[in-house]
C-alpha cells in the first residue's frame, strides 16, 4: 500500500470515529428530549440553544466525579470491562459502507474504512465480544446485582445470537457474499429490491434480535433499573460508568447502520444511479445512509418509551421457541426458492 492510500485510510478512520462519537452525543440528547416529549415533558432545554450542549455538560459531570473502585472487586477485570464493551462497539463500524465511492484527484476512494470480504462475520464476532464486557463487568464487580445483570446478559446472548445469525444467513444466501458492499450493491435498483421487501421475516427477526443485542428495552434485562439497581454497571462510577453508556449508544448506532445496510439498501437511493453522478452521487448516498440510520436510531428511542421490559423466561421463550424456528424455516424456504430459480 502506498503512502497516500495509508493517509486516506487514516483520515477515514478519524472521520468515522469522530462521526460515531458525535452521533453518540446526539443520541444522548435525542433520547432525553424524545423521552420527555413522549411523556409530555420538555426535557433538557437549558444548556445551549434548545439544550443541545446537554451531552457536553453530562460528559463534564462524569469527568469531575470521583472514580471509586470498590475494595472487593476483581481489579484487572473490573478495569478491563468498560473498555471491553466500548472498543468492539466502535470497531464494528469499520466495515459498514456509508456511501458509494468518491473520486478525488484521479483516485477512487470507497466510503468505507475496511472493505473486508467477511464483513458480516466480522460484525457478528465483534458484537458478541462486546457482550463479554457486560458479563465481565457483572462478574468482576463481586456484588449481587451486577452478577445477576451479567448472568442475564449471557443468557440473552445465547438466545438471540442464534436467531440473529440465522436471519442474516438468509440475506447471505440471496447475495452469495459476506461482503457488506456486495450486499448493498445487490439491493440497488428500484425500491422493492431492498431486502426488507424480499425478506420481511428475516428483517423482523433481525430487528428484534438487534434490540436484545444492544441491551435496549424491551430487552434491557441486564440493566433493569427497577429490579437490579443498575445491573452490570451498579459498582461503576465516573468516566467508567460513562463508558458503558457510550458503548451502549455506539452499539445502537452500529446496529442501526447494520440494519440499514442489510435490509434497507445501505447508502442506496431507490431509482437513482449513484455511480453515474460522480462525487455528488457519493455525497447524496452518504446523506441517504445517515437519514436511514437516523430513522432506526429514532425507532430505538421510540420503542424504548413504548414497550415494557420482557421477563427473563419470556425472553427465553421468544428466543428459542419463536425466533429460532422461524429463522430456520425462513432459511429453508429461501434456500428452496433459490434452488428452484437457479
Amino acid at each position, binding site marked *: 500500500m502506498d503512502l497516500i492510500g495509508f493517509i486516506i485510510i487514516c483520515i477515514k478512520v478519524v472521520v468515522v470515529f469522530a462521526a460515531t462519537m458525535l452521533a453518540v452525543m446526539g443520541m444522548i440528547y435525542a433520547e432525553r428530549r*424524545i423521552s420527555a*416529549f*413522549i*411523556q*409530555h*415533558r*420538555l426535557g433538557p432545554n437549558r444548556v445551549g440553544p434548545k439544550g443541545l450542549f446537554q451531552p457536553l455538560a453530562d460528559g463534564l459531570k462524569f469527568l469531575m466525579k470521583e472514580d471509586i473502585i470498590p475494595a472487593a472487586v476483581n481489579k484487572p477485570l473490573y478495569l478491563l470491562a468498560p473498555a471491553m464493551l466500548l472498543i468492539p462497539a466502535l470497531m464494528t463500524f469499520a466495515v459498514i459502507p456509508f456511501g458509494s465511492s468518491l473520486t478525488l484527484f484521479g483516485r477512487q476512494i470507497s466510503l468505507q474504512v475496511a472493505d473486508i470480504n467477511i464483513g458480516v462475520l466480522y460484525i457478528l464476532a465483534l458484537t458478541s465480544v462486546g457482550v463479554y464486557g457486560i458479563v465481565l463487568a457483572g462478574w468482576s464487580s463481586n456484588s449481587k446485582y451486577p452478577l445477576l445483570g451479567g448472568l442475564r446478559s449471557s443468557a440473552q446472548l445465547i438466545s438471540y445470537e442464534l436467531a440473529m445469525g440465522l436471519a442474516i444467513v438468509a440475506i447471505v444466501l440471496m447475495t452469495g457474499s459476506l461482503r457488506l458492499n456486495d450486499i448493498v450493491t445487490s439491493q440497488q435498483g428500484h425500491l422493492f429490491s431492498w431486502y426488507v421487501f424480499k425478506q420481511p421475516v428475516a428483517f*423482523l427477526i433481525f430487528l428484534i434480535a438487534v434490540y436484545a443485542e444492544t441491551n435496549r428495552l424491551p430487552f434491557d434485562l441486564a440493566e433493569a433499573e427497577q429490579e437490579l439497581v443498575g445491573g452490570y454497571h451498579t459498582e461503576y462510577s465516573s468516566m467508567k460508568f460513562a463508558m458503558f453508556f457510550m458503548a451502549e449508544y455506539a452499539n445502537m448506532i452500529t446496529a442501526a447502520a447494520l440494519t440499514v445496510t442489510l435490509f434497507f439498501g445501505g447508502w442506496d437511493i431507490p431509482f437513482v444511479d449513484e455511480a453515474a453522478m460522480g462525487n455528488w452521487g457519493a455525497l447524496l448516498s452518504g446523506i441517504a445512509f445517515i437519514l436511514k440510520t437516523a430513522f432506526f436510531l429514532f425507532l430505538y428511542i*421510540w*420503542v424504548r*418509551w*413504548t*414497550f415494557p421490559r420482557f421477563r427473563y423466561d419470556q425472553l427465553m421463550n421468544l428466543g428459542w421457541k419463536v425466533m429460532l424456528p422461524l429463522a430456520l424455516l425462513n432459511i429453508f424456504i429461501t434456500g428452496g426458492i433459490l434452488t428452484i430459480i437457479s
Partner: protein
Amino acid sequence: MATVVKSYEPTFRDKLYIPALFQGLMLTFKHMFKKKVTIQYPDEKHVPPEGYRGLHRLNKYPDGRIRCVACEMCAAACPAHCIHIVPEPSPWEEGKERYPVRFDIDLLRCIFCGFCEMACPEKAIELTEIYDFADYSREGLWIDKAGLLEIYELTKTQNYYTVPNDE
C-alpha cells in the same frame, strides 16, 4: 344465579403481536406532539387556584389601621402553636381597644391548615396564594407583624403570581 364469565380468546391477529406493537408505537408517537405540561418554574410560575392556603397576611382597614384586635383566637385555634401575639391597649382614641404590638408566625411550625383565618372574628388574618418563600435560615422563616402587613400590601389587589416580575 351464577354467571359464566367468558374469557377472551386471542385471535390469530392477537397472537401475531405485530399489529398490537404497531398500535402501541402509534400511541406514543401521537403523545410526542401533545401539549407539554412542564411549567419552567423560575421563569414562569404556577398560579394557584382560588382558596389556596399559602403564606399568611394581616389585613388592614382602608384607613391603614390594622384589623387585628389581638384576641388570640387564632393562636388558640392553631394546632401547631405557631402564632405568637403580644397584645397591648390600642393607641387610638376611638374604635378597637386592643391591638397586637407583636404578631409573629413561625412558618416552620405552621401546617397551613387555615384554622386561624376561620377562627378570626375580625377577618384580620388570611392565607394568601404565595407558596415560594423558602429561606436559608430558621430566622428567615419567622415572619413578624411588619412582614405580615407587607404581604397584605403585595396581595390585596391582585394575585401575587399574575403580577409581572421585574417591573
